[in-house]
């Protein structure tokens, strides 16, 4: 076929520079090493950026090279108070991340944790404002918890019911429910705003009714203790309970689940009510333990950050502990560094965003390997085009 050969007479053939292949069976030590090096690398990058953006000169601060790390540690573990505060932030994030995990495990993409926690806060705050001052404190706390559970569970159940019966898209639905919750809380705090203020203000500041009691001088300890227990319980639930098994089957395939007699509707709604209930507990702890009020921003985006924590932790509540603690340290520490090194707090947000972006990137390297073929790449570039009809010699086959 001579006309065939003519068309492609002079044609450079270039081999690809690299290609990407999936890894199988990655050993645990390898994952550990990759993650650790990425965490260290991310810290290094944050330090460099911090050094570059800070207007302070080296004369004013000779230790400027490591100042970022100093202020991160100072901001988070300077004394007992800051340490507890950091752990409290981490715990809140952890419990919300663990709460949405059962839903994620059955591929119900619940991004409505923000709204569900906020509804929990709302329920707790209603009790705090109207009932708590006139009843004993432990009773007030129980009532707050109950109302928080009901509010948050209902908020989670609504999209689940619609998903189960009308197959609505749960991602959009739960997202929209967030905005409704925010609107509700905003309306509530406007209606009952404190005198001379535009918000609800700290409730029962004088009586401390509905406030979590302090032990060892910290109001966070009870909350942290409850959260640790809940997270372990959720891990156990997912791994060893029949409900957890049903969720795992649903994760595999809905058809398999139906065939083995799992009622998909029931499991969907039940799991979301559980998610909502745990979010409700988080809301209750948040209001009674630290905020002592409710406002549209009281959850502060933790409901969305939790989505990332849950994914980073591979839907394993125990693994999430590491990432939620890291998140608390980096966000609180970065803002402390920003304040001391005289750059904007927004830069601190950029730093913590960058930090987690890099850790997410490490997932790519634990799942895939990149193989460079430098020799082939450069060799093929210089290879002269072969003349017509010539049979090539058998070489360069195996590499």
């Amino acid at each position: 076929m001579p006309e065939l050969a003519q068309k492609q007479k002079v044609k450079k053939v270039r081999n690809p520079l690299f290609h990407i292949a999936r890894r199988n069976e990655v050993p645990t030590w390898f994952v550990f090493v990759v993650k650790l090096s990425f965490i260290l690398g991310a810290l290094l990058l944050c330090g460099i950026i911090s050094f570059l953006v800070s207007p302070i000169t080296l004369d004013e601060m000779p230790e400027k090279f490591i100042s970022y790390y100093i202020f991160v540690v100072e901001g988070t573990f300077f004394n007992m108070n800051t340490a507890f505060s950091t752990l409290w932030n981490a715990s809140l994030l952890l419990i919300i991340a663990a709460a949405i995990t059962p839903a994620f495990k059955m591929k119900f993409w619940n991004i409505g944790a923000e709204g569900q926690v906020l509804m929990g806060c709302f329920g707790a705050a209603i009790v705090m404002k109207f009932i708590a001052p006139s009843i004993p404190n432990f009773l007030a706390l129980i009532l707050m918890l109950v109302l928080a559970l009901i509010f948050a569970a209902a908020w989670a159940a609504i999209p689940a019911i619609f998903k189960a019966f009308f197959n609505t898209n749960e991602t959009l639905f739960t997202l929209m429910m967030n905005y409704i919750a925010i609107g509700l809380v905003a309306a509530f705090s406007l209606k009952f705003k404190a005198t001379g203020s535009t918000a609800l203000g700290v409730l029962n500041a004088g009586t401390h009714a509905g406030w979590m009691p302090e032990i060892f001088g910290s109001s966070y300890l009870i909350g942290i203790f409850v959260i640790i227990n809940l997270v372990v319980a959720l891990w156990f639930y997912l791994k060893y309970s029949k409900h957890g098994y049903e969720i795992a089957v649903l994760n595999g395939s809905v058809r398999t689940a139906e065939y083995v007699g799992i009622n998909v509707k029931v499991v969907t709604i039940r799991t979301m009510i559980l998610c909502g209930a745990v979010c409700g507990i988080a809301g209750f702890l948040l209001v009674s333990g630290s905020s002592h009020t409710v406002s549209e921003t009281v959850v502060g985006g933790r409901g969305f950050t939790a989505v990332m924590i849950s994914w980073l932790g591979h839907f394993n509540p125990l693994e999430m502990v590491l990432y939620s603690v890291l998140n608390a340290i980096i966000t609180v520490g970065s803002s402390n560094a920003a304040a001391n090194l005289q750059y904007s707090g927004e830069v601190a947000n950029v730093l913590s965003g960058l930090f987690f972006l890099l850790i997410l990137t490490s997932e790519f390297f634990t799942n895939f390997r990149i193989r460079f073929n430098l020799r082939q790449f450069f060799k093929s570039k210089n290879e002269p085009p072969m003349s017509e009809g010539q049979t090539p010699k058998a070489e360069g086959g195996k590499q």
Partner: protein
Amino acid sequence: MEKQQVIELKGITKIFGRIVANHDCNLSLYNGEILSLLGENGSGKTTLMNALAGIYCPDAGDIYVNGEKVRISSPHDAYKYHIGMVHQHFKLVDTFTAVENVVVGLTKKDYEEIAKKDGTKAQGFNLKASANRITEICNKFGFKLNPWQKVNTMSVSEKQTLEIIKALYRGVDILILDEPTAVLTPQEIEKLFDVLRAMKKDGKSIIIITHKLNEVLEISDRVAVLCKGEVAGDILTENATEKILTEMMVGHKVDLNINRMEIPTTGERLIVQDLSLNGRDGRKVLKNINFTVYGSEILGIAGISGSGQKELLETIAGLNRNTQGTIIFHNPKKEQPVTFFHKNIKQIRELAAQGKFHLKGKKEPLSLVGKTNKEITEMVNKEQIIFYEDEIMNLKGKKPIEIRDLGIKLSFVPEDRLGMGLVGSMDLIDNMMLRSFRKGKGGIVHRNKPAALAKELVDELEIKTPSLHTSVKKLSGGNIQKVLVGREISTRPKVLMVAYPVRGLDINSSYMIYNLINKQKEKGSAVIYVGEDLDVILALCDRVLVLRDGEVAGILNCKDTNKNEIGLLMTKKVEERSEENA
């Protein structure tokens, strides 16, 4: 015509993760020849051809077209070198007509090249002219195709014809066909082979990927055999026999006989009467199906794919409940004791209240009123509670779990192994308890028994797995199937339904599955076997039911029939219809 090398593959290697799909493969193709690429499933035939067709980029090795080193990085690239591939799963747009499917993706330059090759004037986008050209191609090679027919109204063989024409339209000189006969009836295969011979006469080269030996011997000039990703050798067809080829394929000698045990049947087990099922679009997927399966019998079900095989099995298993008709399960329990294997205490009480039992050695009905659970348990364990008659139950409209709760041992090995039979992301142990995880008290799952079962299956069926805690989806196709079949058989089913159990399996695993099915027959189970390989159905089954368009076209005795008769039953109506259309 002088023999000229048109394609040469040198040292092609392709690696997916840890799996080496192809290792150092050398292959050449001459003009005007039909080359068979033979190998077991998973031996790397399709991967090697995908590298040639521009789907994959090989990790190492070179491709030469007419002695020219080329790099083919997309299927469009491949067409540039006049290489076309018909994939096993067709790449057609369902809502387009034939001609639209042929011209989709052609650029102005492509039209010019095509015209240049033909020696005609370039036409550009013009469906009428393209349709005329399609008709020309059809006449030249002996195809039958209406260019204006929509793809979604076509039969499988028409779609395949369209795929071949699509390649020929683009001026292909080298045509690769991936398992072209897997979906065709014996008659359609003959037609396809005639077309291929006509193309060969025209000087075109053809590569057929297949694992069917008889077809290789019938159609090809030369056979290249792949074994575990490497080219085991090539041989001229005239020098080849089935035995030689099999040994090349497998790497060692194998026994190619399936033993059909002639054992007496043990009475009716499953009776399906006037079963109809409406599909999602309101069309009837199953129409008045009637058949009976007996114990110790294997009933084969044959038919063109999509004739209702899947729906029939799923309906019996309780997955489709929008049905008319009856499905009667006959449990041979007459004068047999009740066991906890089939019934729980509550069910035994209910059945006793209906007067279904008598005490061993006595005639009058047994009453369990006033007896404690402990007393009943003792009586059952001593085998004192005896059925009067066989149990007869209608399964129609019952969910899978209700069927199981009735104590009916009905096992189903679905076509979709990881989508329905197993959960790919779970390990072997968790998959073992998929149907029994509710057993045991409390909310905690008990993994001891499933773990023991998994270990037993791994030992007994030689399942190759790194550990019991490996995700099932990481195993090979054959091992996945062994896990599934093993689990289903371990429940000692009275009725076992298997759909395409050897699809994607190598020869050794296939024979292991046939043996397992035969063993179930020996134990008295009624087996329903849906398969695509008619040779296997004829060798393994006692009777074969032919489905055609959701109807029973006939039930034949395997000893008194042959492939042609079954093939005719499979297609009769389809052919009638296509003639009407023409």
